[in-house]
């Protein structure tokens, strides 16, 4: 007895604790392991019971049944009843399987394939609870430094650990909130952090307590993003900065924006959603359609090069003739209602420099719809047959180079379109070729890609990417390297040569040695509602009219105006472009894109230079430390 007691006392009972069976260093392994043991044991027990049940089930109920022939037992009432029950059993099992299959679809497949499901996923309580407790990786900017984090964690005044956004308003459209359509915060690492692992996964995958570093680097440059946002302070518009060689999105901002930290619940989100005057939830960079104005002439020019029509000589005549596409048509004149060059035999270089509407309208008609449509498609613009189709194109996630479709869906731009159908007459199509009329479905993001295509040294449109580690991937071969170089040279006339519409850029970059190629644009958008800044409601006047019975009724007539938007798209530095930029500023009044958007782009280029994004050649050298002066005795 004493020996047994001594033996028992020698046992280290702590070593028999379940946490030591599965590896207590990883805390979750113990409950996970025990859960699996429990499930297996319950499975075995259920198996025992089933065997017992079947054994009883097959046994004759009465002794007289034991020796009866099979044919006779088949006709017994009990057997017939059982057959009927089995039929019903089969029906119910099938129904259960159908429901189970339905569940499997929603749990495993809808999450990756169904966009609507993704958008509504935030309403799932389990997802929200898991998302709340799981710590997401930090999101770092392209430098990968912790100090340049775009999303991290902080402990707030109440001692709560909360997600923190050092660039809150600046990154709101890219990151998105916990409500509404998902942004990068809900898609970038959903599979890594917020998905609850099953017990067997915990046991199989988390064997050692290895510190995890799931931090994600994105292509955005934190300093550039902050600077870009500051450039739109007090203005409505958007700026997109892309590297044309790699597709890296360096900065993308839309103003007005909102603070992610202000959206604490669904009510906050709904309030922002209801702001129709500023529409802060809308990313104007990717989801707002603008009339591209003369920046679209870059597309027409690329189309001319692709079709070997770069030497086409057109007219640029004074009013009232200007360019008249067909007899009886309205004339198409240059800005100001007359002509810029006022000559016949105008070449593409001069026409692009001064932004001749007449030349590019004529060129578009000369090239034809198919050729223009083909170039547009290579640039990611959908060429549709009818005007009403232009508004039905939805989003375009395939333009993105992402590691999974969920990410692409969350930041997908609206599909830009142009109409090339036979129903358009030469006037309409000519207008479209110069960036007005039915070419009104362009996003700033798309126009940055239009600039990026000739900016790529190989003439390729590289798919934009947001994940830093993605390898560059081409969307299309738009131009030959030679054609791209020629177009870059022509684009430089706008900013570098006297008489070019983007001369402000050269002035701003004087002394830096950076040569820029670009295109200005000024576009009119009609029927824009006027909002009362005090109430945020649409302005209207009350009018009276008679109804069918002769009664006088009052109705609201909403006030509208024609808004002028300023554009500038560009690439820099010209010999090896590292940035392709699209700037759009809404409601510039009587100014032009060259005087409003172009200086902003120049500032962005200067900032990119300071940050070393234009290459070592242009990065300002830090002043050498001065030698300490000798003290005179």
């Amino acid at each position, binding site marked *: 007895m004493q020996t047994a007691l001594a033996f028992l006392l020698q046992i280290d009972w702590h070593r028999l604790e*379940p*946490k030591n069976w599965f590896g207590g*260093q990883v*805390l*979750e392994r*113990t*409950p996970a392991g*025990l*859960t699996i*043991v*429990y499930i297996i*044991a*319950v499975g*075995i*027990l*259920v198996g*025992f*019971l089933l*065997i*017992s*049940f079947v*054994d*009883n089930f097959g046994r004759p109920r009465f002794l007289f049944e034991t020796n009866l022939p099979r044919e006779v037992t088949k006709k017994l009432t009990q057997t017939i009843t059982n057959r009927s029950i089995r039929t019903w059993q089969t029906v119910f099992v099938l129904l259960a399987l159908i429901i189970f299959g339905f569940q499997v679809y929603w749990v495993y497949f809808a999450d990756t394939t169904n966009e609507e499901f993704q958008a509504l996923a935030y309403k799932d309580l389990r997802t929200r*609870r898991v998302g*709340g*407790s*799981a*710590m997401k990786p*930090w999101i770092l900017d392209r430098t990968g430094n*912790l100090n340049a984090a775009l999303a*991290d*964690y*902080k*402990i707030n005044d109440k*001692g*709560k*650990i909360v997600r923190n956004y050092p660039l809150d308003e600046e990154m709101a459209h890219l990151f998105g909130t916990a409500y509404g359509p998902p942004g990068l915060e809900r898609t970038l690492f959903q599979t890594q952090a917020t998905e609850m692992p099953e017990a067997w996964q915990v046991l199989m995958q988390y064997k050692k*307590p290895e*510190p*995890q*570093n799931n931090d994600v680097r994105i292509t955005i440059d934190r300093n550039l993003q902050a600077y870009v946002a500051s450039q739109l302070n007090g203005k409505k518009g958007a700026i997109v900065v892309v590297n044309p060689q790699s597709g890296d999105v360096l900065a993308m901002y839309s103003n007005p924006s909102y603070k992610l930290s202000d959206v604490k619940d669904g009510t906050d989100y709904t309030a922002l959603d209801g702001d129709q005057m500023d529409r802060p939830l809308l990313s104007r960079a990717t989801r707002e359609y603008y009339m591209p104005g003369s920046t679209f002439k870059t597309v027409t020019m690329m189309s001319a090069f692709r079709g070997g029509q770069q030497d086409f000589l057109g007219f640029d005549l004074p009013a009232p003739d200007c360019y008249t596409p067909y007899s009886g048509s309205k004339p198409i004149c240059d800005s100001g209602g007359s002509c810029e060059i006022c000559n016949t035999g105008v070449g593409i270089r001069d026409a692009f420099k001064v932004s001749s509407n007449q030349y590019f309208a004529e060129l578009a008609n000369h090239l034809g719809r198919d050729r223009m449509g083909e170039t547009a498609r290579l640039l990611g613009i959908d060429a549709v047959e009818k005007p009403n189709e232009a508004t039905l194109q939805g989003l375009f996630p395939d333009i993105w180079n992402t590691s999974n479709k969920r990410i692409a869906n969350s930041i997908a731009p609206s599909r830009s379109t142009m109409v090339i159908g036979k129903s358009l007459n030469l006037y309409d199509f000519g207008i479209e070729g110069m960036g007005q009329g039915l070419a009104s479905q362009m996003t700033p993001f798309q126009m940055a890609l239009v600039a990026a295509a000739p900016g790529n040294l190989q003439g390729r449109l590289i798919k934009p990417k947001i994940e830093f580690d993605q390898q560059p991937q081409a969307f299309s071969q738009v131009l030959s390297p030679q054609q791209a170089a020629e177009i870059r040279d022509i684009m430089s006339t706008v900013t570098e040569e006297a008489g070019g519409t983007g001369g402000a850029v050269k002035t701003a970059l004087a002394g830096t040695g950076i040569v820029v190629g670009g295109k200005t644009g000024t576009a009119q958008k009609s029927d824009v509602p006027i909002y009362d800044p005090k109430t945020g409601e649409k302005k209207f006047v009350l009018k009276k009219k008679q109804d069918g019975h002769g009664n006088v009724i009052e109705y609201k007539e909403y006030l509208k105006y024609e808004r002028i938007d300023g554009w500038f798209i560009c690439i820099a530095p010209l010999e090896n472009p590292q940035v392709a930029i699209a700037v759009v500023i809404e409601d510039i009044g009587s100014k032009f894109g060259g005087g409003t958007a172009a200086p902003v782009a120049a500032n962005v280029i200067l900032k990119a230079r300071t940050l070393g994004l234009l290459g070592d050649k242009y990065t300002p050298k830090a002043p050498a430390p001065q030698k300490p002066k000798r003290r005179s005795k």
Partner: protein
Amino acid sequence: MRNRTSSHFFILVLIVVVTAISHYSIYYGALIRGYETSTLTAVRNLSLLSLLAILPIFLKHVFKYKGSWTVYTAAVLLFSMGLTIQYRLFSDPEYTSKNDKADAIAAKTKTLQLHYIQQNYSPEKKQMMGLPPTPPSEVDLSQETRVRPPTRFLRSFYQVTRSTRSWRSSG
């Protein structure tokens, strides 16, 4: 498998064992999330199942029962599952509280987050968050403070046997 009482007694004993395993799992899982489940309630549940496991022997020898045990054993198995689920849910402050549910969720969330930070974050990251810049290390649950069951609801085994809730009546 024959319809022997001994076979079913064996299954019933197994049910008691697996229920004990599940209760320990719930207890340990709760510790990870920063609260503690009631040991007394676990003892109550296991005692109840043990009684049910022994019952067939009495029924056979005292009342000479010779019928099928399958339904009885299946019922006890389902009952054990129900007890396990009840123990899981009613031990969780998040589930039982009514007025301070948000606080209960926040407390659990913060415990999990601090564990994650301790295990995974570099000293630099911890410092940036305003935490002591320690290297990643294992979590020692025995060193942690946790929400303990209020003793006023657990004064006696008698009270526990009457209660469907493990330790808390309402928030």
